[in-house]
């Protein structure tokens, strides 16, 4: 059986397409690379969707936390505190059992107790809280002169936010937001270890790596393969976010542009 056959059998196994049973013996390197790679589909799915949806909520939460009105500020502060102050692992467990209990109340909650939606909701809220805090910090450091200039030009309300404050906020927050994105992708590996069942063994990359490590009782093959995949993913995220960072900063003189630097202060 050549490696291409393995790709045909297991390449989309994490989506339920291809061979039904996972390999039980003869764990070749090729099988491990293909199956773990197949699991990466879920990591990318969770990461990308949570980031995109979380971005909008994060902006709203940041504006809410910076707002003068108590009724907007307090809920935003509590939202950020609850999701940043507790472990993501516990949040997953809690959400899973919460959705299980709600399931008996209404069939609407049926899909929430499976990973593809339930875990996505948790990741969405979690990343919104972490990025909301980043955006809030950036919002406070928007230069006063920019806002005054906007006022002088007759901008106010939504146009002022949309055209002046928001782009500057994004520009200032972007290096930290890049780190948040990297750690969000790392956090997606927790999904199938925290209550959410891997239905028909359709799991993410860590689920399959763990499967191989358990079966072969040899951690020195499966986990380095997984590590390789994640390093590639991290580099892709850095490249993409670096490109966006250059676009956000393109009006600035070269020396003042902030470079994206790795800071390990945003883990969950």
């Amino acid at each position: 059986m050549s490696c291409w056959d393995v790709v045909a059998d297991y390449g989309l196994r994490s989506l339920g397409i291809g061979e039904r049973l996972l390999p039980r013996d003869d764990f070749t390197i090729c099988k491990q690379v293909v199956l773990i790679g197949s699991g990466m589909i879920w990591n990318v799915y969770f990461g990308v969707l949570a980031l995109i949806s979380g971005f909008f909520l994060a902006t709203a939460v940041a504006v809410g936390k910076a707002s003068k009105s108590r009724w907007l500020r307090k809920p935003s502060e509590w939202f950020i505190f609850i999701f940043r102050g507790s472990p993501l692992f516990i949040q997953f467990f809690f959400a899973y059992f919460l959705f299980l209990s709600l399931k008996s109340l209404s069939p609407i909650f049926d899909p929430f107790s499976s990973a593809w939606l339930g875990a996505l909701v948790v990741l969405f809220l979690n990343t919104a809280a972490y990025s909301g805090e980043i955006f809030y910090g950036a919002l406070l450091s928007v230069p006063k002169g920019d806002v005054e200039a906007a006022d002088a030009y007759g901008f106010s309300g939504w146009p002022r936010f949309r055209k002046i404050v928001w782009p500057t906020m994004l520009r200032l927050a972007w290096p930290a937001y890049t780190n948040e994105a990297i750690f969000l992708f790392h956090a997606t590996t927790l999904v199938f270890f925290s209550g959410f069942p891997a239905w028909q063994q359709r799991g993410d990359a860590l689920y399959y790596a763990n499967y191989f490590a358990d079966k072969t009782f040899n951690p020195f093959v499966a986990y380095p393969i997984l590590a390789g995949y994640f390093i590639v993913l991290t580099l892709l995220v850095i490249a993409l976010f670096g490109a966006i960072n250059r676009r956000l900063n393109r009006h600035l003189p070269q020396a003042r542009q902030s470079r994206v630097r790795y800071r390990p202060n945003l883990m969950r």
Partner: protein
Amino acid sequence: MFAFCTDPSVLSTPAWFACYFTTGKLMLFYGSFGTVLLLLAITAPVALAFGFAGASAARARFAPLSWLGKIYIAMVRGVPDIVFFLFFVIALDQGLEYLRHKIKCPDWDQPIRQGSDFIVCQAAKLPLSTAPQIWHEIYGFSLAVLTFAIVFGAFAANVLFGAMRAVPHAQLETAEAYGMTHRQTFWRILIPQMWVYALPGLSNLWMVLVKATPLLFLLGVEDIVYWARELGGAKTARFSDYPHADWRVWYFLGLLVFYLAFTRLSEIALARIMKKLTHGQATMGGEAQRKAA
């Protein structure tokens, strides 16, 4: 626990909770909070020591040592920490058994890895299969602590390496001009000054460490997550004195509140320490304190 708990009529009254919360199993649950605190108490200093060693190694003038330190620092960058947790627990266990195997059974002729099995001689097993249960638990917990220390040591090394570079270079040059050796400069000038720069990063690391403690569950230790899952699950009258429905959501709500309170307390304590350390420092924080006074 209480005498009235033997009376079946108590089952429908609020007093039932007094009975429920004092059962032996629940006591094990409360004890597991101690496990988590013990893990934190041991891991934090050990990880700091690992981090210090890593950061010092990365600064070494002897190139291979410096590479080793830099690799250790870079280790945690691109790969999720949970992968390291799962990896190191097995890898450390097998590594230790392999070493003991080499020492205790030199005349063993079969390969260690036979297909999907990892086979060492009986005398090399860790802990010995004849050892009492408590040793198995201690061994499992120590492996978990060591794993945590290695992973968080890498984060700490990252922070300390940055802090060492943040110390003004003129200070080190002055020390050399006074004729101090490299070693003296490191211990007398660099180390005392780096802590202020390291503290924001280290306090962040503490919060991350607190929030990583539920991962103990994945390392096979019977911690709070394990007991919350066990005890919360539905109990029927046949298997338990205190039957109840699926309460796992409440148990995990309790854990959520525990962690929120813990991180909040840590935040307050760390803010106090930071305030104390910046007092009188020639930094922006110290200057702000001086103006406010």
